[in-house]
């Protein structure tokens, strides 16, 4: 879902030619095939991991293969699983997309593998099948869905990071009064429009702790749950207050990244992942952008909505499950984390205990970390707690965020969209 779009975005902004460098295979080695998406950062990470693992395990040969992202990738994964042609290890989203590939039937149960002792429980929950068993291990780092902000503007106007929605809007008013764009939106790429709603989930569950379960069961609706409506209402509010950049309807994700980095706007609701795009598009401004969670009504219960990294899975059809498990264990180890940081940069916290980041991370990442640490406040996004995400959300949030449709209408429309998805998935209670 959103992860997928991000993958595409990463691909989009870097535009690096991906050339596969398959390792040479020797006769006496066990060959383990490894499939991952073709985002340049994933490719770099995956190949570095394969090389490091081979260096430690001379008898195993990891053969890497990249696949397209997005809907093409989904189809490819499903087809290969169905026809028994899946690689020994493959990378795929956790959460609702993971549920859609029928893990109980297709994947090897890794619940009792020793490496799981180091995997953080919140990740395990997103790769657990309907039978309660764990089927994957994390690769990459977690992200937050919140607000990127321009630090020089905050300094210039003497603003402080808001903890409540009222403080946020007060900041916006001052920014607008100073003749600057308070909030950047980039509806030229519709997926970027969803953060006000999806990134508000921490606040939703803080008020209605049972929302995810009730929503999955068809008992809770956005339109009839005031806390869940807030995301839509706030998106509408920001538009009506006239805080948006002039070209919000046509601007694209790279435009947004450039604007927030260069101070053409003060806030950009986005996933923390964008830090790698800032590095790409405006490296000289990497230290000008910070990050905070989308604030809720109450400053006391401020917290972050988080996105989980992808998982590594082993199909039941694998001919070398033991070697595949050894590789997965390596990726989900402290050593594996370090290889990932070296090859793809530090973009957020790892979901493996005791993995560390270098000291000199960009401000976006250092702002992100406290939410994840002991005593911090974070909750996974709804797409990791429920298999249902309506496919039309991005169009609906574009309409609400550009004044075409009211927040109440938008929420009701989204409920209808969600209903279709739930019915299509054959969930009980719909």
């Amino acid at each position: 879902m959103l992860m997928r779009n991000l993958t595409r975005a990463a691909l989009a902004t870097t535009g690096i030619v991906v050339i596969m460098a398959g390792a040479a295979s020797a006769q006496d080695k066990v060959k383990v095939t490894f499939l991952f998406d073709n985002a340049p950062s994933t490719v770099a990470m995956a190949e570095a991991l394969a090389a490091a693992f081979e260096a430690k395990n001379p008898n195993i040969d990891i053969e890497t293969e990249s696949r397209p992202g997005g809907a093409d990738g989904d189809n490819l994964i499903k087809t290969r699983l169905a026809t028994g042609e899946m690689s020994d290890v493959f990378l795929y989203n956790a959460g609702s997309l993971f549920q859609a590939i029928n893990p109980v039937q297709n994947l090897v149960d890794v619940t009792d593998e020793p490496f799981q002792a180091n995997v953080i429980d919140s990740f395990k929950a997103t790769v657990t099948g309907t039978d309660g068993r764990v089927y994957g291990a994390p690769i990459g780092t977690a992200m937050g869905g919140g607000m990127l902000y321009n630090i020089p503007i905050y300094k210039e106007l003497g603003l402080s990071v808001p903890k409540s929605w009222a403080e946020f809007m007060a900041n916006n008013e001052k920014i607008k009064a100073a003749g600057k764009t308070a909030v950047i939106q980039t509806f030229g790429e519709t997926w970027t429009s969803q953060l006000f709603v999806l990134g508000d989930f921490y606040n939703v569950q803080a008020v209605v702790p049972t929302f995810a379960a009730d929503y999955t069961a068809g008992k809770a609706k956005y339109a009839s749950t005031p806390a869940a409506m807030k995301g839509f209402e706030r998106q509408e509010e920001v538009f009506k207050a006239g805080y948006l950049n002039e070209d919000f309807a046509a601007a694209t994700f790279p435009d947004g990244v450039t604007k927030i980095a260069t101070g053409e706007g003060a806030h950009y609701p986005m996933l923390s992942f964008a830090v790698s795009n800032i590095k790409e598009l405006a490296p000289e401004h990497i230290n000008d952008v910070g990050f905070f969670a989308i604030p809720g009504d109450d400053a006391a219960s401020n917290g972050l909505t988080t996105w989980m990294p992808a998982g590594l899975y082993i199909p039941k059809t694998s001919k070398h499950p033991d070697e595949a498990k050894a590789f997965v264990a390596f990726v989900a180890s402290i050593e594996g984390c370090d290889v990932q940081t070296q090859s793809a940069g530090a973009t957020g916290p790892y979901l493996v205990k005791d993995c560390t980041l270098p000291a000199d991370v960009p401000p976006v990442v250092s702002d992100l970390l406290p939410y994840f640490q002991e005593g911090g406040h974070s909750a996974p996004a709804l797409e990791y707690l429920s298999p249902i995400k309506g496919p039309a959300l991005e169009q609906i949030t574009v309409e609400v965020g550009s004044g075409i449709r009211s927040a109440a209408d938008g929420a009701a429309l989204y409920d209808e969209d969600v209903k279709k998805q739930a019915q299509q998935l054959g969930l009980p209670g719909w």
Partner: protein
Amino acid sequence: MRHAQRYILGGVAIAASIVVFLVPFAFIVLTAVKDRRQAATRSFDWPTSWHFWDNLMEVLRTQDYMLVTAFINSIILTVVSVTLLVVLGAMVGFVLQRRPSRWTAIVNFLVLAGLIIPPAVVPTIWVLQSIGMFKTMHGMILIEVAYGLSFTILLFRAFVATIPRELDEAAIIDGAGPLRLFFQVVLPLLKPVVVTVIVVQSVAIFNDFTNPLYYLPGKQNVTVQLTLFNFQGQFNTSLHLLFMNILLITIPPLIVYLFFNRQIVAGMTAGAVKG
């Protein structure tokens, strides 16, 4: 028309045509040779520096020479589909015109149905999957043939009517069977309409976007129109490469147009006006 009027009207029309029709093409060419920064401004101005060769090579290299693969795929798709269309369409058009039977009405009805009914997308995917042809070039070729048959048959039927029957009879006297009659006598006489079908259908299939999007997903199967679409996301910050891509895939139709201008126009109007 008086002399002055002829020139004034012509002058006005040419000026208007430059603004309306040539500026967009000039925009494509100019953007395609600019550097990244200048292209990103979307402005219509002279390139400050020329990067034709750099941009060309870069767009070709993108995603492991995807555009090269796409050109090969598109050419295979176009050539094979058009060949099948010509042979199969001519066979139907020939018998349809020559021999009225209980089939004639049915075939005519189906030809019309093929022109009007929008293809049912997902059921077609379902059929392709069950015969193992989804995401394959064979499947895509047969789809293009199925969708192009109606128009092709119409053109052939109209043209076969102009070939005298006496030729058929002469062939029988020579002892020809139906296959020899068709391939050695009739098909060569159909040459003008064959050229028309080739040109019209190859432009249509080469430019087809929707059908490969549905029936031929996957990177190794990409066609030129889909590269444009794939690159649209990736080249958001690289308009110069996106427009170089547009320029490259416009060249084949341009060549076809320069050589077969008359046949295209004749073909597009023949089926239509005389109907």
